[in-house]
């Protein structure tokens, strides 16, 4: 520090070093380049492949087939079924997370002994690896000796190999993991509701439901919306938890189909085309999500 103070004024231009413009470029451009090289470039690469019949497992010349992959995919009822399974999964699991998460937040939004500890403990599932969570829920769901069936007293019901139940079992595990996420955002919203609004409502003898629907809900809504969009996007992309939990065709989410196309059936070209269909959908949701994030930021 002392050295800096004694700098000769005429040497300042040199000592001032890089201009702000240079610093900005040096700080920002490498990151953008890195992301372009490792995210955008691969996507361009796969866009190219999506117009071919390329199979990565064989050494055959690659043929350009135009939009045939897309046409084939979009007219394949099995692919539509994958999307339908995914939609069902997204609805069940996100709905469950929203209801349970918001409910938990309403219960927690008061002075409770060891509230911080309880909140943090409830947060643990969402910080864990979905693959590992999926694996030990297999133990819980086991039909013959799993503790879940024992506690519920439903004998040897095979959650994960039952075509109808498997998707709900996967969604239940996902709800267990991610309801705390909704709870966290809801709690932030609830604690930001000004207390005087409740006092005013009490003076006006407003009912519990009226207070809830006219004060609590509108003020928490922006954060709930963010939770809803984010969880919808994540649930749409779900791979690991469903892949590990069940092999039932009724749990074959789009990303699992994508994985099978690409790395089990080695239909590389076709998988790239499906990847693009998924990608466009995800980017659309991301766009909406960022819009609401920025809105929440401005508040």
């Amino acid at each position: 520090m002392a050295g800096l103070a004694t700098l000769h004024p005429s040497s300042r231009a040199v000592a001032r070093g890089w201009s702000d413009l240079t610093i900005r470029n040096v700080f920002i451009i490498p990151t953008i380049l890195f992301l372009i090289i490792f995210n955008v470039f691969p996507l361009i690469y796969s866009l190219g492949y999506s117009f071919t019949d390329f199979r990565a497992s064989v050494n055959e010349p690659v043929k350009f087939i135009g939009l045939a992959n897309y046409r084939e995919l979009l007219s394949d009822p099995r692919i539509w079924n994958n999307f339908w399974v995914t939609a069902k999964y997204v609805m069940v699991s996100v709905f469950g997370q929203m209801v349970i998460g918001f409910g938990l937040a309403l219960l927690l939004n008061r002075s409770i002994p060891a509230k911080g500890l309880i909140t943090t403990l409830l947060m643990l599932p969402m910080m864990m690896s979905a693959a590992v969570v999926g694996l030990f829920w297999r133990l819980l769901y086991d039909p013959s000796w799993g503790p879940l069936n024992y506690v519920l007293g439903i004998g040897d019901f095979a959650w994960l190999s039952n075509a109808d139940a498997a998707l709900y079992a996967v969604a239940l595990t996902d709800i267990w993991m991610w309801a705390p996420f909704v709870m966290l955002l809801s709690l932030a919203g609830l604690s930001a509701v000004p207390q005087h609004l409740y006092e005013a409502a009490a003076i006006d003898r407003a009912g519990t439901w009226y207070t809830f629907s006219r004060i609590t809900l509108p003020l928490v809504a922006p954060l709930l919306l963010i939770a809803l969009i984010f969880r919808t996007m994540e649930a749409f992309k779900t791979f690991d938890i469903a892949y590990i939990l069940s092999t039932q065709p009724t749990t074959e989410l789009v990303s699992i189909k994508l994985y099978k196309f690409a790395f089990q059936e080695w239909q590389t070209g076709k998988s790239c085309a499906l990847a693009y269909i998924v990608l466009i959908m995800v980017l659309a949701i991301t766009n909406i999500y960022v819009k609401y994030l920025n809105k929440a930021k401005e508040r």
Partner: protein
Amino acid sequence: MAVVTSARKRVMNRMAIAAIMVIAIIFLSPLYWIGSTAFKPRSLATTVPPTVFFQPEITPFIKLFTKRVQLTKPVDPAVYEAAPWYEKRIYDGGERILRVGPNIQLSQYPNRFLNSLIIAIVSTALAVSMGTITAYGFSRFKMPGEADWLFFILSTRMLPPIVVAIPMYLMYRTVGLNDSHLGLIILYTAFNLSFSVWLMKGFMDEIPKEYEEAALVDGYTRMQSFFKIVLPEAVTGIAATSVFCFITAWNEYAFALIMTNRRAQTTPPFIPSQVGSGLIDWTVIAAGTLLFIIPVAVFTFLLRKHLLRGVTFGAIRK
């Protein structure tokens, strides 16, 4: 009137607290189950009704770290007596530890755990250091199309892993990065970089510009004021961001499943792959899982004040 309301409120409050306690116990019971299974004798892991109370033992962890085979005939009493305590536990379970000469053969678990550590630490260091300077750049300087660039950066995080993995797998195959530590480190750095930029930008925006301006007046260069004023102020943010990036890389499954199979395989694809091999010993799986999730649990407690910020990419700070 007021008295009636407050009495009713108190009852409601008590009921809410009771409900929370019950729900918390139900919520945490799967975690208790995995934790307790890791200390059960194998015979008690899959009983009907499920075993809740038992004499905990350390045997599953010994099994987790060693390579074993079934005993074909009862072990020689003299050998049994000469064996160290941990080996006796294995003999008791009807198995023996494999040896190469006098040395115990380790299982693959410690190696996979080490892979996870190396890959998560290096990719976190890269993502956070790049993210920090980029966040500073976005926070302090005007940039044409700033919002679009930030959206671009965030959108790379939102890409479904499998979508990115298909072309990356092909490119890695060409340059020989499949099943290498470097390959996964690059992928995880790219994946965490956008998150790190967004989260750090939130932290940078909170550091008053006046601090640097004062330093500039005092004759610091921009760079000096960045390193000597801004970085020390941002330490909490850097720590929180690092922990988030570490957890993400530590937990990641899809990329690791696709890109690695032996040499650079991390723990998340390794543990499930053990289930497929023969008779499942759930106590060993549980022990491996428990060791794997302990760091995450510790970090979650350290991070508890920053969780909200982390899960919303720095947008909501409370």
